[in-house]
């Protein structure tokens, strides 16, 4: 048997008995949910995924897919960071507010000086308004996210207050920053270059088979970041340390891992990813409002938990979160597609989050028993 080297000390190892990667279960759930919504739509005479209109030449329901993919992408980018925070045994409740604050600040630097020949009526910096190169708002945005994440990390690592409290404080404060920045006024009219960040086509309006991929830069960025962090979590010291800390912090400390410094690094990474989401979101919408990103932190946590990331820390993966994000988005779009009222949507959303955590607890108990 080729796998004989697995067994040590005379114990035979049966590869068939290997536990299946939990990501496959999440993937199965995704397929199942897609099928359910397709059936429900068919019962109403429509289709969830496929194009039913005769006057449009397409196989898929492009409009719905675009909405779903955009939703997965923006909140999914936040969820990539939240996943890492949860894996080290923490939690980040601030990401939605960090998106809000970053959005306002980024947009101020992205504003164009003249709109249709008149000075920009919304210009934050008034007389100093000028078209700055795109790199300036991007740098400002990343700096915001970095700062917020750094503060979160320092609070959690060095004051030893529970991450729940530390990031709750940041959640409230960052939202305050978002409102204070322009006295609650929206910040609008970005430069053309800034608008094309999310609305342009990195892939040149490429079509993958029958699925057109236009104006989906956020999705492209999401996929790239997901691949990057998948590799980082799986193959680098950063990932190994993250899982070790989430799994047994005392053991990690005793093994010589600088736990505090690593925590700061992970929270900072989450802040940076929230900033990336804010940049793409404002670029897509061409405006920033103080209320942007409200509840995103919970959506992001839900995506991770649905994807099998354990709130107890130490378990879960980036692939799981990507699948969890897909499930989350399919459910939201699915409810809309069967014309379920928005109020019910929120109720069910809450139930799904609780259900995923219950499932995680249950899995944990059966595993330690077995």
């Amino acid at each position: 048997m080729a796998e004989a080297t697995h067994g040590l000390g005379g114990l035979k190892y049966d590869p068939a008995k290997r536990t299946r990667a939990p990501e496959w279960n999440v993937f199965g759930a995704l397929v199942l949910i897609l099928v359910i919504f397709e059936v429900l739509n068919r019962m109403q005479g429509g289709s969830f995924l496929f194009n039913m209109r005769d006057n449009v030449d397409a196989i898929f329901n492009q409009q719905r897919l675009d909405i779903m993919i955009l939703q997965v992408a923006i909140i999914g980018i936040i969820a990539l960071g939240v996943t890492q925070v949860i894996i080290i045994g923490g939690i980040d409740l601030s990401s939605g507010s960090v998106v809000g604050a970053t959005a306002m600040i980024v947009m101020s630097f992205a504003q164009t000086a003249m709109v249709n020949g008149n000075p920009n009526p919304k210009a934050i910096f008034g007389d100093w308004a000028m078209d700055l190169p795109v790199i300036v708002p991007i740098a400002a945005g990343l700096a915001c996210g970095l700062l917020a994440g750094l503060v979160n990390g320092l609070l959690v690592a060095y004051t030893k207050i529970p991450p729940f409290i530390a990031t709750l404080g940041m959640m409230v404060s960052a939202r305050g920053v978002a409102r204070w920045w322009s006295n609650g006024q929206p910040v609008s009219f970005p430069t053309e270059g800034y608008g094309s960040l999310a609305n342009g086509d990195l892939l040149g309006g490429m079509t993958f088979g029958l699925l057109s991929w236009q104006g989906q830069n956020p999705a492209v960025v999401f996929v790239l970041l997901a691949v990057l962090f998948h590799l980082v979590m799986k193959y680098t010291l950063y990932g190994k340390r993250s899982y070790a800390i989430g799994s047994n912090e005392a053991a990690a400390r005793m093994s010589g891992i600088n736990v505090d410094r690593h925590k700061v690094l992970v929270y900072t990474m989450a802040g940076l990813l929230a900033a990336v989401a804010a940049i793409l979101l404002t670029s897509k919408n061409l405006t920033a409002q103080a209320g942007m990103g409200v509840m995103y932190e919970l959506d992001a946590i839900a995506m991770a938990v649905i994807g099998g990331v354990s709130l107890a820390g130490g378990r879960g993966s980036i692939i799981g979160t990507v699948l969890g994000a897909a499930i989350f988005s399919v459910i939201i779009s699915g409810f809309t597609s069967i014309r379920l009222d928005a109020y019910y949507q929120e109720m069910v959303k809450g139930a799904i989050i609780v259900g995923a955590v219950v499932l995680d607890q249950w899995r944990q108990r059966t595993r330690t028993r077995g």
Partner: protein
Amino acid sequence: MARIILETRGLTKRYGGVHALEDADFVLHEGEHVAVVGDNGAGKSTFVRQVTAVEQRTAGEIFFDGQPVSFAGPLEAREAGIETVFQTLALADDLDVPSNLFLGRELFRFRLGPFSILDRKAMRERTLEALKTTAVKIPNVDNPIRNMSGGQRQCVAIARTAAFASKLVIMDEPTAALGVQETAQVENIIRGLKDRGVPLILISHNLRQVFDLVDRIVVFRRGRIVASLRKDETDGNDIVSYITGVKGGTEAA
């Protein structure tokens, strides 16, 4: 007489008013296996925590490998060559066996600060080698150790110590929670260390085991070392007398 590897002089630890360890003079020679026995709260674990710098001593001196040492933490002690299996297993349940063996001393393909790329293949191979020399039975080293039995997990913890043992191994009740077969396995690992000439401090409640494995027995009572006896000049009853204070007790003097 062989070279002295570890010596403590007047080692003392107080927690507030509690004298957990008083004036402990202890010597361990190269290649020697010594058992530390005593009742609960006699100061055995406190002694180990001072030597491995998990805690900082109140007073006294520690000499390791001929040098006076004052480690800032357990990591420094480990880097100096003191490997310890603690009573509470220092293992990460969600990681596989190689990751646990190499926790904090990973091998790399490419160094880039925290984003250094791990050499998973080399770590896996060296893990298999290390486990083979210790004759540990583990069905699949690629599984997270959460799914393993208490004995297998303990064996991983001990294999980790044995694999990297350079100058001194300390085990704090390594078989306390194990079944008969698993205990035998751990004892085999300890004999392997003896054959390799690696010195050992073994904390144990199991006198049968102690007499089976070590050269010398040091008895702690109420924070003090009350006896240090070569195995062949004592017996179980004698040791129990020291542990309970019938013999050599401070109040008896």
